[in-house]
């Protein structure tokens, strides 16, 4: 097993802030993607949710990463609405369940958390791979991350492979005909457009990779096997 790199509570807080900023920055482009095959609100919805997260995140001071993720999930559920609200809400709630009680998370923790999160999203939305949804970014990200660990990659490297896979999955949604969500009403006409939810999900994975890239804020610890 590779040298253990793990992520602190503060790293997770920083991630949420960075992602909120990334969503704010991409608000318009996400909404534009949604106006092609949806109802022109995905960026607006996500931004409303993550601004609310920003407002709430500093009030959580438990040091419990699981509690932090759950707060994010609850906040998203009650502020985003639409399809994005329950789906991203579930994603973060499940990250929270998987990391409950932890003040640091390791690569293995993240792998398990990602797996739980993707399962939660699929249980809520019933989407399969290839339905042209956020799941098309999330499944490859989860699988690439696990594969990287198996290959012996360290956390930063595995996160990069996970983000790359998410982006590939996102791009791969372009030719797809949507089978879930609002875009499915379009039938064949949904082909040729990139899915907004897959785009915001790929952005999440990329933000994770950049935020936890092993710079100063991410602590390298002795492997403590177990």
């Amino acid at each position, binding site marked *: 097993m590779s040298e253990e790199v793990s992520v602190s509570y503060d790293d997770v807080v920083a991630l949420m802030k960075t992602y909120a900023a990334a969503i704010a920055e991409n608000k318009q482009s996400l909404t534009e993607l949604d106006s092609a095959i949806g109802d*022109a609100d995905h960026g*607006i919805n996500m931004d409303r949710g993550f601004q609310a997260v920003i407002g709430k995140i500093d009030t959580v001071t438990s040091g419990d990463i699981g509690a932090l993720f759950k707060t994010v999930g609850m906040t998203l*559920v009650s502020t985003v*609405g639409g*399809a*994005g609200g329950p789906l991203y809400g579930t994603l973060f709630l499940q990250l929270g369940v998987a990391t409950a009680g932890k003040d640091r998370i390791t690569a293995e923790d993240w792998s398990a958390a990602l797996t739980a999160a993707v399962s939660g999203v699929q249980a809520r939305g019933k989407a399969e791979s290839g339905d042209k949804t956020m799941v098309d970014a999330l499944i490859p990200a989860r699988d690439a991350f696990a594969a990287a660990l198996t290959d012996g990659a360290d956390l930063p490297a595995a996160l990069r492979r996970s983000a790359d896979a998410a982006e590939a999955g996102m791009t791969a949604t372009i030719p797809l005909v*949507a*089978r879930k*969500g*609002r875009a499915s009403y379009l039938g064949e006409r949904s082909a040729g457009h990139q899915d907004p939810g897959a785009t915001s999900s790929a952005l999440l994975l990329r933000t994770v990779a950049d935020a936890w890239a092993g710079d100063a804020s991410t602590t390298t610890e002795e492997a403590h096997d177990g």
Partner: protein
Amino acid sequence: MKKLINDPADVVREELQGIEAAHPDLVKVAYDPFYIARADAPVKGKVALVSGGGSGHEPMHGGFVGMGMLDAACPGEVFTSPTPDQMEAATKAVDGGSGVVHIVKNYTGDVMNFEMAAELCRAEGAEVESVVVDDDVAVQDSLYTAGRRGVGATVLMEKIAGAAAEQKRPLKEVADICRDVNSNARSMGMALTSCTVPAAGSPTFELGDDEIEMGVGIHGEPGRDRMKMKTASEIVDMMATAIVDDAPFSNGDQVLAFVNGMGGTPLIELYVVYNELNKFLAGRGITIARNLIGSYITSLEMAGCSITLLKMNDDFTRLWDAPVKTAGLRWGV
């Protein structure tokens, strides 16, 4: 973007303040989270009807809260499904002890949020029946899509089931009436222009000066086909044919014909459309027993219309005719 609003972020809140100021006799408004409830809720011994959806479809749903129709409505952001906490709070506020029906339009967001809300409510012991409206024939219905969208039938369902609830019929029966309305109703819409979501600031879609969108959704979702502008007669023919051929309408049937404006359509045009529809249905041997003409389920300022047909039976007719007292629909009282 030109709209009679202040900050786009405040539109829904300020609309609610306007509704609260205008109709204290009919409704009360909650702000944290947002919902609109009957002024006299909870009504003891009556099944409560709760609906909700994105804002921008006014008068639906907030304008249908009151005696003989909804007990509560949960307004989301513009064109965005409301959240489970709104639905949960509204459900608790109007539950008169005889159970609550959630009327959910079939959009992924609405369905998932109402699902989470129902889970929360049931966990606290409330009796909740969910019914899904999916009457839009513009959308192909298949196992491999999110299914048909809920559109015009929602208004008719809220009125008819609302009257049944007012008669103190039990939960199961009220929910079954909803399902019955849904399976006997079909709708189709079209747009002459796009609409602009306030927070987005630019039109949801672009239509040429001589183009229409046939089968458009109530959130400006693209429809079946973009085509050249046509006469009212041709447009009605296309929409009504799609509806009638889908079932369940046949020669000798009595229907409720609902000609709905999308928000930016003048009433004069809706009557021209109704005239065409009346001729079309007469040609198929279908009789219009009741009608509703106006802008009841809208898409902000979109110009265009939708047609909904509901096959009537005696119970539906009596329930439709029963008194209703809401800001958006009122008769008999």
